[in-house]
């Protein structure tokens, strides 16, 4: 059992080693040749293709791509790398993980030195403001945003006697209450679950739809008093208790299996989730369509490209950013992959508006998702936003699984958040 015994030593060693080298970070002098750089990205988003296209268009440039893991793992690896001092030249950071890094801008190159402030206006202002530090440094360029919509199964809606046309379906649920009522009709008609779960498909959407989420504009934590958060939470608890959910947490194995079996008919889907539906349930091609989100507008997700302070080839990395993340670059990427541009000038482009997705019954996804962004009221994301969101999600899941008292769920969530983040 020697193997078992070594685990804590390894953990402790990793903890100590990373901590030991902490704080220093970034004494290396830029010495790159401008021709090659190291790029850390997420797995499962087909980054390889973008990189290959870039290398084809820019012969002689070598991109060393590492797909670290999911967005969380990538952020964890980046933190460890920053603490240890050996960093990549370019890294992709997911929006929820970003504030922790923006709060410590000394770990990153200020992209203004390469001209980021001149192209700043190309991007949605509330998106690029999230990667701008308090003292003005721009540490990240946004690559995509999520937008919001609802993906639904037309065949299952038909069986339940509901309309199947995407405009009519959008009219079924102008509000989340109407969404729950539609769900009750569906479940009554079919005996099956309507939506995958309450936590992600209702709470994570509704909470992202107002002007203020867990932080007020000056950066104070207000999750406990923010009316928008309480409303979204109550809606999710109501959904969890209404018997219309499949009680399957997003991204778990059962969730994927049920998706291809048609065990639920509706998922709230930011644009990046469409790719997951395609991959998880390839046999359901053509049976899906995309309607508007209740409430009409909102955003969930999106990522940023940043250059760590100690990068050896910052110029080559910036060259990649400026070429791939220009309005034209993001538009091309959308046409290829469906990832929504952060550059509003692309939103009126016929290539974006005219793109139809055959997997989703030829839904004009570019049009649907950009509309959800234009009506959006931006809010501040803070360093503990991810931790706060996770505790709310857990409290809702507990009620949905029959393990939590719905009357006490809100107080439990608040208590857990306080334990977790200390405020």
């Amino acid at each position: 059992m020697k193997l078992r015994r070594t685990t804590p030593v390894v953990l402790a060693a990793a903890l100590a080693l990373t901590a030991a080298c902490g704080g220093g970070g970034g004494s290396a002098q830029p010495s790159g040749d401008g021709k090659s750089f190291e790029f850390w990205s997420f797995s499962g988003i087909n980054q390889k293709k973008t990189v290959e296209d870039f290398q084809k268009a820019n012969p002689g440039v070598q991109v060393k791509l590492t797909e670290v893991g999911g967005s969380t793992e990538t952020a964890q690896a980046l933190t460890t790398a920053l603490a240890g001092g050996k960093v990549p030249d370019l890294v992709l950071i997911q929006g929820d993980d970003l504030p922790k890094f923006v709060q410590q801008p000394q770990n990153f190159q200020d992209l203004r030195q390469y001209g980021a402030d001149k192209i700043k206006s190309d991007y949605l202002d509330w998106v690029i403001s999230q990667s701008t530090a308090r003292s003005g440094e721009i540490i990240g360029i946004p690559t995509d945003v999520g937008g919001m919509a609802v993906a639904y199964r037309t065949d299952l809606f038909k069986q339940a006697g509901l309309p199947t046309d995407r405009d009519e379906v959008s009219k079924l649920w102008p509000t989340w209450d109407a969404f729950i009522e539609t769900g009750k009709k569906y479940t009554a008609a079919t005996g099956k679950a309507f939506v995958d779960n309450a936590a992600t498909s209702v709470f994570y959407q509704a909470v992202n739809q107002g002007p203020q989420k867990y932080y007020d504009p000056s950066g104070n934590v207000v999750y406990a008093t923010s009316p928008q958060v309480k409303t979204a939470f109550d809606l999710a608890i109501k959904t969890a208790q209404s018997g219309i959910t499949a009680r399957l947490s997003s991204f778990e194995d059962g969730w994927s299996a049920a998706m291809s079996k048609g065990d639920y008919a509706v998922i709230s889907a930011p644009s990046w989730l469409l790719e997951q539906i395609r991959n998880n349930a390839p046999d359901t091609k053509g049976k899906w369509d995309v309607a508007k989100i209740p409430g009409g507008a909102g955003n969930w997700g999106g990522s940023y490209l940043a250059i760590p302070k100690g990068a050896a080839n910052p110029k080559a990395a910036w060259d990649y950013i400026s070429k791939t993340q220009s309005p034209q670059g993001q538009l091309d990427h959308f046409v290829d992959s469906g990832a929504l541009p952060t550059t509003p000038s692309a939103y009126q482009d016929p290539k974006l508006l005219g793109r139809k997705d055959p997997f989703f019954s030829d839904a004009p996804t570019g049009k649907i998702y950009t509309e959800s962004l234009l009506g959006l009221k931006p809010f501040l994301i803070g360093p503990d936003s991810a931790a706060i969101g996770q505790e709310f999600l857990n409290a809702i899941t507990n009620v949905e699984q029959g393990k939590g008292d719905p009357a006490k769920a809100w107080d439990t969530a608040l208590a857990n958040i306080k334990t977790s983040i200390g405020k």
Partner: protein
Amino acid sequence: MTTTVSPPQARPESESETQVRQNWSERLAPYAYIAPFFLIFAIFGLVPLLFTFYVALFDWNPIGEHVFVGFDNFNRLLGDTRFWNAAWNTISIWLLSTVPQLLVALVLAHLLNHARLRLALFWRMSMLVPYITSVAATTIVFAQMFDRDYGLLNWLLGLVGVEPINFLQSGWGSHAMIAVMVAWRWFGYTTLLYLASLQAVPRTIYEAAAVDGAGAWKQFRHISIPSLRPVIVFTIVTSTIGGLQIFTEPLLVTTTSPLTCGSARQCQTLTLFLYEQGFGQFQFGYGSAIGVALFVLIIAIASLNYVLSTRIRPERG
């Protein structure tokens, strides 16, 4: 031979001087032989351990500031319900996995030691298959078997009319599920340890006992168990240390909330809690404090175990 090669003759030293020198090198040699282990242990074991104690006294942001906070992290830990929850989960999973595992291994070792067992080598070697299988693979397969909607186990239960059990969401269910995975991985290894010890017991003792009319149970109780005492103590101590550090199984058993092992932290163990705080939230100071607490807990339980298990003594008289 034209030249002589024996060095002692070439040296004009007195015999006693050579004697002293030899004594010195003979005395130092053993230390030199064991030095590599202790050097490596010092670098990768002791220094990180001591450094963990040091970091535990700070509010330590790996990419920001380090603020000295004294024993605040430990105060916070004692009042943290998540810590006590993780401690309870750890002990529960450890008991559920270790006790049955050691008992099963004991019985299996006794059976495998039987003189007339056919294909003995095959049975003995196959014990090791779970042990050499990757933990991740084992966990993923078991997690699917225990799945609420599409799992093999609930399908079988459904055949006899039992409602599907939501193993993962319930406290005891998730503990049992992880305990099964741990026991599955280790029972073969433990069995082989016991078997090796049993084979050192002379057959004649069993034969003599059989002649005297002792049945299988009496042989097991009065010959096998007493002769296994040292190795039982060893396995209890090591499985305690291992059991209190269960990490991979709870990490991989859920895909949605891996760092908490479920929405209510129902199967989050202490090491997983440490990992969540240290590498999920990047509170290195607090994570280190959890590490120190775990260290103390393991030493305490291992000592208790040692005292208790040394009571298994050969029967006398």
